[in-house]
């Protein structure tokens, strides 16, 4: 015991005094991965860690474009519109040396479709996955699914033999408090191998020397040390002091401080997330307003007036310190269906807005409660405070209720708010995802985040048709007409697209991933 202790102390002393190898990247962000089981949680930091260890069939590179990972090519079957064919990369091995073959794909997809999986909603349309030889897999869907690959970019492949040998065939049941071998250990095909992990404290990864893409990607980073640092000021301090080389989520007020420090830089890019306000137009009367027996938000002119009253440039310059892009629609620019014309932000016009209010019979204004999160989006509460002042200019007396996200979001899903802030990211990069959750009438399977009470049978039918329309031109035309209706209705008040900030030491070279998922195999170290 004693000698053991001495040895570990000596080792620790040596480790702390010798400088870290030049190719070690110290990475910090606010949160930690929740589990190592790649199908148990559908959540940003969890996927960000899994991305380094595991791989999907198809991924989006850091520009958002598709790239083959474990599949080399893919496409709909020429014989059957309900089938997608994926050809797998040959010669890929898992970290334990096992070969990656089609049976692993069948196993992984089936696993991700099981009850306890958090990824199952993305795979709703898949009826069957079958292997056709060792290196071809066919996905059978319940109807033509033109955007199937988009649902697979965070769907990680596990080794069937490893999962079976380690009693991890079933997905970890987090709600049931289960801990499985696969939630504590990993065996992926990815560029980095897990060395050690203490949840919320420190995770160490090392380069996979047998990686299939060893000659295809920079892979300059040979060791990753990941330490979550929750407090933003401390995270920035750790970057300034050189203890970490790369941080996500730099607070906007510290951007200049970091950028002006020698040896550090900040890079930014539009994020796949748009921030907007929703208004309950469906209710006959509102709970949290002072108008009896009528719903002012049901009047299109009131919604238009509110849209005209928001000064997006002021929010961009003052609240966001230029770290946002004013928005005209509730789709981020990467998404299929987005157009520059629709996204052109409405310019502020208080006189026109007041005229509309007058016309609608609310010349004296009304009062209403605005529900806002205070720990979810960048400067969320400050944006809402700015909106309060802007609404006052057209006589709407807004009463701001800012709450933590755990209290805010249930208000929207339970229909308990009339005027609220929401942000939306689109993992599939397709408008259908937005329509399904935010525009479709609230039903069992769709419209779960539509707190506006908006309902339109024609639009609903058009939204449903998107999931099986294989003629892309027809599909895109439908998307365009749905957007036209959404814009004409002023269903939401778009505010801006968030901008992502990554801070790093000068020797680290990368671009910002629009989904905030660093993929270290693309990082270059100078």
């Amino acid at each position, binding site marked *: 015991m004693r000698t053991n202790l001495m040895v570990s102390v000596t080792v620790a*002393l040596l480790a702390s005094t010798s400088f870290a190898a030049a190719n070690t990247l110290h990475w910090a962000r606010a949160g930690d991965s*929740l589990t190592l089981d790649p199908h148990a949680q559908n959540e940003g930091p969890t996927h960000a860690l899994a991305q380094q260890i595991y791989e999907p069939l198809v991924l989006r590179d850091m520009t958002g474009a598709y790239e083959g990972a474990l599949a080399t090519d893919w496409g709909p079957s020429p014989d059957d519109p309900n089938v997608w064919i994926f050809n797998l990369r040959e010669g890929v091995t898992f970290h334990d040396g096992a070969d990656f073959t089609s049976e692993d794909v069948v196993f992984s997809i089936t696993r991700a479709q099981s009850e306890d999986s*958090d990824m199952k909603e993305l795979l709703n349309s898949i009826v069957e996955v079958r292997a056709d030889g060792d290196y071809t897999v066919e996905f059978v869907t319940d109807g033509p699914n033109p955007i199937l690959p988009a649902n697979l970019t965070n769907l990680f492949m596990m080794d069937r033999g490893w999962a079976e040998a380690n009693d991890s065939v079933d997905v970890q049941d987090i*709600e049931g408090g289960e801990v499985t071998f696969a939630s504590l250990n990993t065996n992926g095909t990815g560029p980095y191998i897990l060395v050690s992990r203490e949840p919320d404290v420190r995770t160490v990864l090392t380069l996979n020397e047998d990686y299939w893409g060893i000659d295809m990607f920079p892979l300059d980073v040979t060791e990753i040390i990941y330490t979550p640092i929750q407090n933003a000021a401390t995270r920035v*301090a750790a970057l300034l002091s050189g203890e970490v080389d790369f941080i996500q989520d730099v607070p906007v007020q510290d951007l200049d401080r970091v950028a002006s420090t020698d040896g550090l830089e900040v890079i930014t890019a539009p994020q796949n997330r748009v921030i907007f306000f929703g208004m309950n137009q469906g209710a006959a009367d509102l709970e949290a307003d002072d108008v009896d027996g009528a719903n002012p938000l049901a009047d299109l002119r009131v919604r238009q007036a509110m849209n005209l009253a928001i000064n997006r440039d002021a929010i961009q310059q003052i609240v966001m310190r230029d770290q946002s892009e004013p928005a005209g629609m509730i789709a981020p620019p990467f998404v299929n269906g987005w157009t520059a014309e629709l996204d052109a932000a409405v310019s502020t016009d208080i006189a026109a807005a007041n005229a509309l209010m007058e016309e609608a019979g609310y010349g004296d204004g009304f009062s209403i409660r605005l529900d806002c999160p205070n720990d979810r989006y960048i400067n969320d509460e400050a944006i809402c405070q700015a909106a309060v002042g802007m609404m006052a200019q057209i006589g709407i007396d807004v009463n701001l209720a800012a709450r933590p996200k*755990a209290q805010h*979001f249930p208000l929207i899903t339970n229909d308990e708010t009339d005027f609220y802030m929401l942000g939306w990211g689109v993992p599939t990069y397709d408008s259908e995802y937005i329509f399904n959750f935010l525009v479709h009438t609230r039903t*069992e399977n769709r419209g779960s985040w539509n707190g506006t009470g908006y309902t339109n049978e024609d639009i609903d039918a058009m939204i449903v048709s998107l999931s099986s329309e294989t003629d892309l031109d027809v599909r895109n035309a439908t998307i365009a007409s749905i957007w036209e209706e959404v814009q004409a209705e002023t269903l939401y008040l778009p505010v801006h697209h968030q901008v992502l900030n990554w801070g790093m030491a000068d020797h680290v070279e990368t671009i910002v991933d629009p989904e905030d998922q660093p993929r270290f195999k693309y990082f270059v170290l100078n």
Partner: protein
Amino acid sequence: MIYSILKRAVQSVFVLLLVGLVAFSMFRFVGDPVDNLLGQERTEADIERVRQELGLNDPFVVQYWDFLSNAARGDMGVSFRQGRPAMEVILERVPATLELALVSATFAMTLGILLGIYTAIHRKSWISNAILAISLIGVSLPTFLIGIFLIYIFAVELGWLPSFGRGDVVDFGWWSTGLLTWTGLKSLILPAFTLGLYQLTLIMRLVRSEMSEVLKQDYIRFARARGLSERAINFRHAVKNTLIPVVTVAGLQIGSIIAFAIITETVFQWPGIGLLFINSIQFVDIPIMASYLMLISVMFVVINFAVDLLYLAIDPRLRDGKGA
């Protein structure tokens, strides 16, 4: 005597139950854990299934009762966030917090007593006045500001000490310690100072006023008249009598150092139970919050119980309900 002890024990249990009840009635205001557990793509059916599974549809009294009856069997539930037994998650974090608390308590006690004695003996010297003036900073500045300030000076500008984390640790069974590694020790300095500064000021001021009182007592005057050296008077007679109330206060302060390490731990990303508690609030991780609050209240109840017993032992007037 035994009756008094029993009475105190029953009161302690009652306090504990009450803390739990209040905690559980508050949890509903923290938010809905289901939102964090399931992604934005979840359906109504998923929500209902998980709510049912976690017993969130029950009234809070029922939830509290379930918690108590499970806790009585040693089962504190399972963390919603990490999917592991709550007690296991908390125990894993306890060493970090206890180590930080003990180091900062030792630091606060030692320096507090020394400075207190110095300022009491040299009441008029400019050094005493400077120490007292500076100590005002300790009581008046909020902890997070002091922490950030120290990080800025010692980590960012001077680069001497780490700004976050615990450094390398050595494991002894389930206990992990950072006291045996160089990085571990360096990492302790800033958080321990930040956490202990308030207690240091408090103890210093307490010692100073107690000692000033003692120095005015007759027996000190007699000692001086007997021609004892100043050194003997101050350290053999005065300090001894000063320390009795100081020890009582310091004992209780250790409890609050552990309980209020939350802010220091958040600022320094110190992987203790305070940081865990903050994470749990944001995630609405009810089993962790409940276990943490119970643990802290058990700690306070035990400390208070021990102090009560000490009083009973020391002061005969409190025994058998007389004068209580």
